[in-house]
């Protein structure tokens, strides 16, 4: 249980960054919605948990925030990827790619030997 949330904590940040990269500046609600859609509802998280994750990214300087106005004329806080965030995203993506490859090799290796 706890390991699952730990993984989630780590990946949530990455997902937020990726979302902001593809969608441009977006508010918390939008990000949460988008992540849910992309994961095909497989990942059902409370929307609220997005906020501590956003705060952490902001403290680390990966994203910045600004109050703005939404499509239907509502005041909302918009998050935006910073340059540091872009770099972080590339790095993390590469790391994930590597991890994925290693795990894949491992798993296929296991299939062959059996």
């Amino acid at each position, binding site marked *: 249980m706890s390991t699952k949330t730990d993984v989630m904590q780590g990946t949530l940040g990455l997902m937020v960054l990726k979302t902001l990269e593809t969608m441009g500046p977006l*508010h918390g609600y939008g990000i949460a919605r988008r992540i849910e859609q992309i994961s095909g509802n497989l990942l059902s998280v409370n929307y609220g948990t997005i*906020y501590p994750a956003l705060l952490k990214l902001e403290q680390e300087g990966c994203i910045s925030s600004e109050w703005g106005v939404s499509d239907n004329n509502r005041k909302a806080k918009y998050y935006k990827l910073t340059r540091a965030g872009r770099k972080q995203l590339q790095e993390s993506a590469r790391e994930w790619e590597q991890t994925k490859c290693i795990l894949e090799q491992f798993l296929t290796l296991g299939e062959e030997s059996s």
Partner: protein
Amino acid sequence: MRTLRAWIVRLCSLFKRKQLDYEFGEEIECHLAMHIEDNLRAGMSPEEARRNALIKFGGVDRIFEEHRDRRGFRWLAELQRNLCYAARILWKQKALSLIVIGILAFASAANTAVFSIYNFLFIRSFPYPHSERLVYVGTSGGYGGYDSESHHRYREENRSFEAFGSYNPDYRNYSRKGEARTTTILLVTCDFASVFQYQPALGRGFLEKEEGPGEPKVVMLSHSFWQREFGGSVSALGETLKLDGEVHTVVGVLPSNADFPQPADLWVLFQKGQGDTIRGYGRLKEGVSLEQAQQDLTRIHKSMMETRSMNEYLAPPRLRFLREKLFGNVGSTITMLLFAVGILLLIVCLNVAGIMLARSESRSQEMGIRTALGASRAGIIRQLLTESLLLALPGVLLGLLMGQALLRLIALKLEAPSWVRLTPDIPFLAFCVVLTGATTAFFGLAPALQAARVNVQHSLHEASSRLSASGAKRRGLKMLVVGELAFAVVLLVGAGLLLRSWQKMLAVDPGFRADHVFTFNIKLPPPAYKGIDDSRFFERFIESLRQLPGVTAASGANVLPLGGYNQFFFDVEGAAPHPAAETDPAILMRWIFPDYFKTMGVTLVSGRDFNAEDGRAKNSCVAIVDQSFARRYWPGADPIGKRIRIRAEDNLQGQWRKEVGLDRWMTVVGLTRNVAHYGLDRAIEPGVYIPYNKWRSSQMYILVRSTVDPAGIVGPIRSQLRKLDPDVGILFPMTMTEVVKRSTLVRRVLSIVMMLFAVAALLIAVAGVYGVVNYTVSRRTHEIGIRMALGATRGQILGMVAGGGARLMIVGAILGVAGAFAASQAMRNMLFGITAFDVPTYFIVGAVLIGAVAAATLLPARRAANIEPMRALRSE
């Protein structure tokens, strides 16, 4: 890097909590509003839309809390909460808190002050560049020095020093605007300033070419002398001063910090071939050890001595680091003081621990509630430690300020030179932090642990807590008080031993009568008075003093009792065989004028005093010895008529010895009582007196015994001196009583300071006893009521309570005496005239302790005895 950034942001966010909270609330609101809108668009009813949005979001409060934790630091927030709470609690008990802070401040003042001194003596570097490489160059003899040639050979041929210079403190008669005065000077070689890297405040330093013999004489002014005599004017440069009748040109002004190795009005350049004995300071090259430098100079010294005749021989050089040279012999004293203030602090901590423990008793209910509501043990301990810290911190801070103020006062009073630095520095601040932490932990931890061990059930049941929980606490309190008493006894015994030593020292018969003797020093300028003329001058001066009204006797000597060394080895005709185990004693030799014994009040046991004719003729050789000398060499025999002779020792200047006829046998003509020359608390060593005119001295102490006040006699003495020579001033005017008093100063100060500490410790410990007995009485009011109702008399109750106090005292005293035995062994070499097991000291300490504890016990005991049984029973 990113983590660091996050930390900084988090730290900053602590200061705008309200705003951030508000903003986040708004953000959540927006989020929910948008979600609800979307839900409505998807066809939900308004109610369901709202419910769904909230469920999807997850608990708003939980997210809020998580957000807050993430934003700042949880522990910081807790600390802040704890601090606020602790401040409220302590504020509620203002009086108690103030008492605790007060005694902590007192103990910290003592500790920080003593540590400041220790820090200056043994840790802190001196305020000169590379001071850790500064080395003093003296001779293996201890007080000796070397000559001009040695200096130049050392300087030119050494491979160890970056800078090397020599100096000798001296005096010069200096007259300006008609008034003759004696100024302090430092005779220095041209490179002396470079050792300490003193930069002239004005003008320039000395040049090497000015050291040549026959070159015009030059001086530098000290900063204060420049201000005083020349009003700090630039025109002082190039001015000429007459020192001992010789013209010196001012070339520069020293910086105000140039008061090391010692303050002097003027620096006079030491010229090549001048006869003075000098010592040196050098700064080692980087990477050169003291041993290497020692070998280096020893090598130069050896090659130099090979070419010298025996009577030009000098003792080999001895190098010491600055710290050892200056403070080598005060280590044990300051360590003792450090221990004493440490013990004082321990007592204070024990006392405060007692107060905290007693207070935590009344709060056991609070602790119970906290525990019941889910506070962790660690949380409660943290809370209580925060309270302790809040007491310790202001206590130490206040103490620090008090200690610094005290030190400043002492430094001002003693006119400490600028290199004595007692101000706070990094090690000092570290000490204060450790002090705060240690005291907090020491007095806070035990009560906190005790309080955290609450039994929820019990503490919530108030009545039961009164009976059961207090048992353990009372034991804890008693243990603390026993500890306080024991440590107080250690301090009392230590202070008592020092005080008794001081008393013993004052009771020592110095061998002379110090009252009504006024003394001062005169230094004659060398060019004007050559050779034997010095003696003539002194003779005439002393004779003129004898004519002054109120003067009963006047004389002179080269060394005063309790002041200075002038030692030689002697050959003794018909001496008792020399015990092999004993080294040949170096014998104090004093050159005296007739009437010395009468003036100084030294008893002449047999034989006669010198007269004016003694020593005048070259072959007339007489001496007077003291009883210690006679006992050492001719035990049981009459010394009169025996003969002694100064031994041809290496370092003796053979030239003058022959010239004045001191190489001959001298006949003993008188025997005097011993004089405690080296200090009242030192062993008496043998001594010899020689007629004054056997010694070519331009410097003499003049002694005047009078029936009038010394203050009234200074004026006439000065005018007599002016009549003889207007260029000569007087130096060190003092009464002999002052001389004696000064020689006992260290012991006096030390015993008074220790006594202050001990009395403070006793008062605090006794307050502890009072506290615990009083506490016991109030806790046992009910029980006492029952006892009295059952027929106990008031006397029995009094005895019961007082007995409790007495038991504490007995246990404390036994532990304390054991501790004192150990401690007094360590301070054995500081004692005089008594052993470490001085019975009267222990008796007096015991009596004081019994008296103090009795007073502290009887008050609450009386209160207990006066309890009205009926009221006591009803009060519960």
